[in-house]
């Protein structure tokens, strides 16, 4: 009985949060189309989201691609091993692992940082101060982060995809003894334009989710330092869940004929 009540409460509060997030997103979107747009802030945020995430995203992609190649090779595919490794690595990385892993890594870094920053601004009344200085906090704080997220994640995922494939290439050629030229040729043959497009499309959605979760929880945080801590955790958790959920939905939509 109690157990059911707990589940019910979790479902209800999740639904409430998705509703609130949607309202928050709609409110932000309404400010994107109305000037002013703080271009300098967008640039700053892109640098923070993209450039400073490069090492961690690159490292994740490199090791994932390499591990994948090794795993597929030992997975019983003795015949046509080379084409199986090259093909599966590039498809898996570009379609799923590149965007999802980059999204999760960036969510861990960026959603939390955004929530902490906006949350601190909220509890120290800096957001109220913006209002009194005739500056809309949505325009000034939220919109630049959302735009930067949507622009930056595809760029980051492009890099992640390339490094991930390179990780597979390294294992394939250095350890498994494949020919470099033919491995690259197989990779190119397997990859289709639609894979790249869907990969970058997913990345843009994840970028939006990452910034949205960070801004939403930060903007609505209350209760001093403890509240900011809670906002930070909640931002990362909801970004993770929304990324995984939206990825499933997008995969179903894109890859079902």
């Amino acid at each position, binding site marked *: 009985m109690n157990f059911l009540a707990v589940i019910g409460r979790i479902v209800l509060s999740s639904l409430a949060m998705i509703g609130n997030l949607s309202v928050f997103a709609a409110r932000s979107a309404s400010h994107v189309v109305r000037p002013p747009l703080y271009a300098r802030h967008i640039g700053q945020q892109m640098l923070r989201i993209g450039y400073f995430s490069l090492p961690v995203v690159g490292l994740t992609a490199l090791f994932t691609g390499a591990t994948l190649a090794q795993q597929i090779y030992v997975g019983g595919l003795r015949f046509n091993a080379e084409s199986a490794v090259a093909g599966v690595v590039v498809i898996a990385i570009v379609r799923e692992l590149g965007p999802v892993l980059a999204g999760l890594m960036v969510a861990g870094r960026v959603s939390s940082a955004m929530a902490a920053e906006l949350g601190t*601004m909220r509890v*120290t*009344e*800096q957001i*109220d*101060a913006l*209002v*009194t*200085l*005739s*500056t809309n906090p949505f325009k*000034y704080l939220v919109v630049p982060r959302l735009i930067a997220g949507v622009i930056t994640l595809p760029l980051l995922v492009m890099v992640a995809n390339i490094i991930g494939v390179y990780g597979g290439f390294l294992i394939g050629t250095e350890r498994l003894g494949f020919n470099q030229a033919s491995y690259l040729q197989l990779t190119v043959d397997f990859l289709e334009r639609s894979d790249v497009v869907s990969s970058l499309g997913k990345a843009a959605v994840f970028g939006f989710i990452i910034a949205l979760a960070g801004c939403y929880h930060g903007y609505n945080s209350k209760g001093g330092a403890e509240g900011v801590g809670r906002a930070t955790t909640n931002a990362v958790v909801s970004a993770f869940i929304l990324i995984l959920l939206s990825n499933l939905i997008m995969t179903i939509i894109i890859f079902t004929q």
Partner: protein
Amino acid sequence: MSSPAKISLAGVEKRFGPKVVLDGIDLSVARGESLVVIGGSGSGKSVLIKCILGILKPDAGAIHVDGLDAVRGGSDVREEILCKIGMLFQGGALFDSLAVWENVAFGLIQGRKMNKNAAKQIAIEKLKRVGLGADVADLRPAELSGGMQKRVGLARAIAAEPEIIFFDEPTTGLDPIMADVINDLIVESVRELGATTITITHDMSSVRKIADRVAMLYKGKIVWNGPRGQIDQSGNDYVDQFIHGRATGPIQMDVLKR
């Protein structure tokens, strides 16, 4: 008090969940007048000011600023009202990602679209006005002492030369001498601008220095409202207890009830 009120509140109520914070506030501030609102911590003084600013929306009642409807007016009206108001926040609320001068010039650059160099000149002037040198202008707020931060907050509040200024606990957390410096600065800058002000405080030396009129907030209501000169002979037990800082009296602190 014959001229129309610059700020007027009628029957303002504000609740957070079951908790009633403001329970029917009637208050008016005449043009050029300095009203000081006193009351214990958590009595809803900041909430009162945030309702006037439109940061919080009252559950009932009417608020007018210069005849403009602050509660039911649209975002244009709110914009117009906010342009008239400068605010010194309780904790300073300085933007810690920006330099001191950018904080002071923020309303000029973002709100009024002033050119950066001109705004910086004004910012440095205002900083000098509150006793801070130009060398402070390029520092970050985190590099300043509490008293200096309050002064930067004050400079930011007066930078756009507003008609109305709100001061939320301007002297809380400062030593008595710095508190007196801030009180003097407030009095001087308000006189210079001819501004209408509401100051929130529980510091009686501020009250005596700044106030034309005093209102006391307790349990969501204004329990006393009168000229500064009458505060010692108010005949009101709440006010007497507050200004003498006595633990016993009609005001029951939560700690005593348990």
